[in-house]
């Protein structure tokens, strides 16, 4: 075992995990996705990825176009239902919520109803998977920096992810975690909302950035890259030195 390595997961057997990567993470934040792979493999688990499914269907679903959403989400359900992995892991609260909570509604009264529910039950948000399923809080990470955590709304309210990321960050060597005021307040991204109602989205984002900057943290960390895109986009426009990182990227550092 390497010096400063991960606490051995004594109670958990080696798992076969299928990683589902949200479309925007695949295109815009691939490093965050690879960090999830790094962390899971470091803990001794096998990670698989399906190159032929790309999007959970949330954009069309949120806009009310459920037929179009089903066209995109259907192949995802079929692929993952046929997948025999021990768990499906998603590094995004909003995408995770889509599978775990909203697929039930989207596929109600359709041929895929039962599979959709079953897939949801096997799906985990990344930090929740580590802490709740694997019982791991120390993944052997080292990241000496002052950091604040933003709670992505879907992860927080649909998936009840609150203490899990904080527990993980607590065990990162050298990391100082400070809480920002109104950590649970929405950053203003909201998917297509950010483009449909840009003025409101921007105002919400500005308030989030202000509370983040107040903490004097170097990094804002979240379990949702979309939130981070919103925050970083505003911070960069304001020419402020704050940086954003997905929690997987922090946990992958050694």
């Amino acid at each position, binding site marked *: 075992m390497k010096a400063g390595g991960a606490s051995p997961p004594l109670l958990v057997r080696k798992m076969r995990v299928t990683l589902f990567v949200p479309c925007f993470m695949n295109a815009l934040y691939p490093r965050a996705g690879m960090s999830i792979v790094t962390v899971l493999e470091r803990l001794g688990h096998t990670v698989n*990825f399906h190159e*032929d499914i790309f999007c959970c*269907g949330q954009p069309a*679903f949120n806009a*009310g176009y459920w037929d179009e959403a089903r066209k995109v989400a259907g192949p995802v359900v079929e692929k993952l239902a046929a997948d025999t992995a021990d768990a499906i892991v998603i590094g995004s609260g909003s995408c995770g919520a889509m599978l775990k909570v909203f697929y039930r509604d989207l596929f109600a009264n359709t041929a895929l109803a039962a599979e959709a529910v079953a897939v949801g039950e096997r799906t985990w948000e990344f930090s929740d998977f580590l802490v709740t399923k694997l019982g791991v809080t120390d993944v052997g990470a080292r990241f000496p920096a002052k950091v604040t955590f933003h709670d992505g*709304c879907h992860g927080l*309210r649909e998936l009840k992810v609150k203490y899990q990321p904080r527990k993980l960050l607590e065990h990162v060597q050298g990391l100082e975690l400070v809480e920002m005021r109104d950590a649970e307040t929405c950053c203003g991204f*909201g998917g297509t909302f950010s483009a449909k*109602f*840009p003025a409101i989205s921007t105002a919400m984002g500005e308030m989030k950035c202000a509370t983040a900057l107040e903490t004097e943290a170097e990094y804002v960390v979240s379990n949702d890259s979309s939130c981070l895109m919103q925050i970083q986009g505003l911070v960069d426009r304001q020419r402020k030195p704050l940086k954003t990182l997905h929690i997987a990227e922090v946990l992958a550092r050694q």
Partner: protein
Amino acid sequence: MEGSTTFAQEFKAQAKRVAADLRHRGLIRTALTKYETARDLQKSAFQDWQGARQAAAERKWEAINHLDEHLEAFASRLEERGTKVHWASTAAQAREIFLEILKEKGARSIIKSKAMTAEEIHLNEALEKAGYSVVESDLGEYIVQLRQEAPYHIVFPAMHLTRGEISALFTEKLGSKPTDNPEELTMIAREVLRDKYITADVGITGANFAVAETGMISITENEGNARLTGALPRTMITLLGIEKIIPRLSDLALFLPMLATAGAGQALTGYNSMYAGPRQPGESDGPEEYHVVLIDNGRTHLLADAEQRDALHCIRCGACLNVCPIYRNVGGHTYGTTYSGPIGSVITPHLRGLQEWKHLSQASSLCGACTETCPVKIDLHHHLLQNRRNAVAKKPVWWEKQAFRLFGYLATRPGLMKRLLPFAGFAQYWFHGLVKGGPLDPARAWTQTRDLPAMPPLSFTDLWQAKKREARRAAEAAK
């Protein structure tokens, strides 16, 4: 449709203006932070706030899902003790009923306590048009009445005004001395309204709850103006929506503190009063005549939507407005409706028309703070999603539909996506800088105020495939 673009466009224009108003942002933030502190303190005093929410939700479920039984009991009990109960399907009918009563009583002076339902049916305008003068007695309502504007918030009508603005208003309309002191300003209003209470011959109120078991309405307030409105005038009229029903008197023991906690961060508001009818024999005062006007105005339409029926559980506490990040940034007037905030966004399409008002359901990031805070557990943010779905099912927007179909085409062909993504990166790198933020920029909605991330040269799929190739090579080499 001409009308629908007007409401949605107006909303967007107002939202843009107010969201950029830093003074407004600061003022609302201060007001709501005070509320949050008080609310959190009060909530933590409960032995089991979550248990109370579930109990309140269940009681409202019982009330609404047996609405006909409870409404019948409510009306019968009231009528048995001398109250005249009126029924109105529409706002127009309700206004007519009021005008008839006022005409019959030869009303000269009307005092009114706060009633959002009266706002909803535009009662004041109708009465004034018929030549009656109506004075709002609630301080916040009195202030916005003087300014001739709608209430800003269902519980705090004048939340958007500073003391300086109120002082200027009083000086202009009442001729009072300017003052910076909230107490002095309140006393000015108290003085003016004193005489109105005593001389009014008709008092109009709303109601927070309607108790079926005992035939009573319950009014929650802090100032005492509703009590005075219901004590002194000879005729008292209460207007309420049919959904205000709760089954038993004892249910108030749960609803009154929850309304106070969620609505204002108080254990109980200053006065919570129950009215069972006109003055009874042996009582020393009270109205000789009591009328209760029950109104539908679209509520049965919402009732019929089993998925969203729980929106009728609303106790009008305003908590969802207070926590909504959209509300905080655009303010109450931007919505252009009687009921603003999340509850307004949910119910207005049912009360006034889905296609014309769907934009309120779209103007949300679906953060869920509203659902989390609602004392009666209305599934607010999911209803916004359902409104979106329903609006599209009836009338999809053509170009949106095509855009999602195109996205669907690409998203189900990851091989094709992989080949196309580099072009997006190329275009961004070489051309975006030229048009960024300007009228030619396709991402203008974002780039006007935010920077876009630079598209990485390799996607996750690329990195994954590279990793697999590496692993295969390593396995080969090891052989």
